């Protein structure tokens, strides 16, 4: 592998890692606070992609030509509407099952995933939707010996936006009353309630935050790939779930790190092996982690000193 291929795949891997990291945060937050895997989360990301697509189409129809302005408006819009979906999913499918055996909300989550996919299939049609590229610039960087690496403007936007969001998100969880209430609920919900935390509202907020981060990933997918359909949430969701498990389910830095790792694995795999087996590689990682290190890279074991 020459240096230019290495750097090129590094840039591509970082971009992919941004998607997976943003989605993985939603999985890991929900797992942390109510101990369930929200299998509908991948479809929330798909909803985010569709809201973004509709947003871009509407904005271009009414004549908004400024690209940064359009991205900003669509970003806010996608986060808002997708957050509503995330909130509603928790309210309809999970809250009524609070306190029931763990399998019940899991089945409900898979059901919700099917509902969301079919809803979008009916409402938007089953065919692939496409969007003309609206962010076009790219830079070619010379890395010596006549070799060069191409970085698109969109990749830069994706990476910068993701890093900024993750930094903001980390700050909210670490240093604000909302984040403290979120962590307290995660560690001992009854005690948090005894101190005045509205546990149900905190859980709702967790879903809203997770869904809005997934919405950003959805918007970026619409821009980056230019084609989306009602089924994109499935594979992206399972890969992000793999990222969350790899990082240590329940750990927020773990989800970011796991997302980055999965992105890099995906981008470097075809350099050495057959591209067709790329998904196999990712899910192979999931199996290996579950066998050899079930707590993930940054996860903590279940047992702890009390």
């Amino acid at each position: 592998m020459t240096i230019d291929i290495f750097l090129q795949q590094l840039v591509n891997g970082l971009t992919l890692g941004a998607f997976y990291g943003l989605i993985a945060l939603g999985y890991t937050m929900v797992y942390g606070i109510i101990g369930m895997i929200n299998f509908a989360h991948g479809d929330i990301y798909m909803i985010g992609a569709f809201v973004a697509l509709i947003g871009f189409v509407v904005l271009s129809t009414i004549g908004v030509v400024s690209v940064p302005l359009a991205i900003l408006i669509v970003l806010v819009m996608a986060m808002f509407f997708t957050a509503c979906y995330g909130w509603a999913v928790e309210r309809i499918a999970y809250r009524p099952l609070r306190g029931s055996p763990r399998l019940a909300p899991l089945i409900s989550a898979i059901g919700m995933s099917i509902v969301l996919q079919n809803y979008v299939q009916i409402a938007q049609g089953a065919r692939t939707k496409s969007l003309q590229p609206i962010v076009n610039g790219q830079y070619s960087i010379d890395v010596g010996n006549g070799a060069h690496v191409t970085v698109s403007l969109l990749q830069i936007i994706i990476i910068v936006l993701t890093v900024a969001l993750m930094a903001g998100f980390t700050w909210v969880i670490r240093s604000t009353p909302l984040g403290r209430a979120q962590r307290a609920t995660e560690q001992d919900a009854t005690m948090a309630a005894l101190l005045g935390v509205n546990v149900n509202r905190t859980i709702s907020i967790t879903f809203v935050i997770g869904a809005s981060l997934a919405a950003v990933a959805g918007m970026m997918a619409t821009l980056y790939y230019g084609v989306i359909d009602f089924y994109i949430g499935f594979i992206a969701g399972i890969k992000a779930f793999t990222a969350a498990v790899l990082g240590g389910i329940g750990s927020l830095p773990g989800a970011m790190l796991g997302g980055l790792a999965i992105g890099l694995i995906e981008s470097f795999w075809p350099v050495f092996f057959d591209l067709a087996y790329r998904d196999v590689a990712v899910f192979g990682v999931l199996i290996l982690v579950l066998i050899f290190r079930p707590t993930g890279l940054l996860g903590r074991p279940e047992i702890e000193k009390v």
Partner: protein
Amino acid sequence: MLTVEGLSAGYGRIEALNGIDLEVRSGEIMSLVGANGAGKTTLLMTVCGAPLRTAGRILFDGEDITGLPMHEIVRRGLGHVPEGRRIFPRMTVLENLRMGGYAADPKNFPSDLEKVLTLFPQLKQRLGQRGGTLSGGEQQMLAIGRALIGRPRMLLLDEPSLGLAPLIALQLFQAIVAINRDEKLTVLLIEQNAYQALKLADRACIMVNGRITLHGTGAELLADPAVQAAYLEGAA
């Protein structure tokens, strides 16, 4: 200040409280003594809004708080130091204390923190440490401090001496008396350590199998032969 009328509660078909009547007066320390499984913790949790109640009413300061959700009750001024301390293990001591002030005005936090650290100076060097790494005694101090940060008008303490070295337990009891005296804070104390609990109480009750079987002043119960036989053997 706190009135419980005909309170019954249970877990499914298992009845844990059977028609409890209890009155805690403003400014006093009331101790509730009983064996394991007598229903003491169930009583405190039900007062604080755990959904276990089957009959009866709970009044705090004249207001009916029966059936209010848990997170609303702390805002009425009831601070709870629960059984087993329930420190948030992966939050720092300072963050645990901040959680204590979650429902209170954040402007009061610096002065209230100062007060708690004066009461429990041991916590001062531990502020940046995770709650789960503290010793049992320190965790109990933290649990009491966390409840005090919210500026409660009444403190509910569930077995603060549990699992602590006798000397540390004694220090905690002294702290409780000091808070009661200096801050005029009403205290409802649950204990298995009957001797200490009755000694520092203004009034006390004995609880057996979900009922209150005896009540009187702390001194009266300490002198009661039945109480001595059942709870104080070898203690006094």
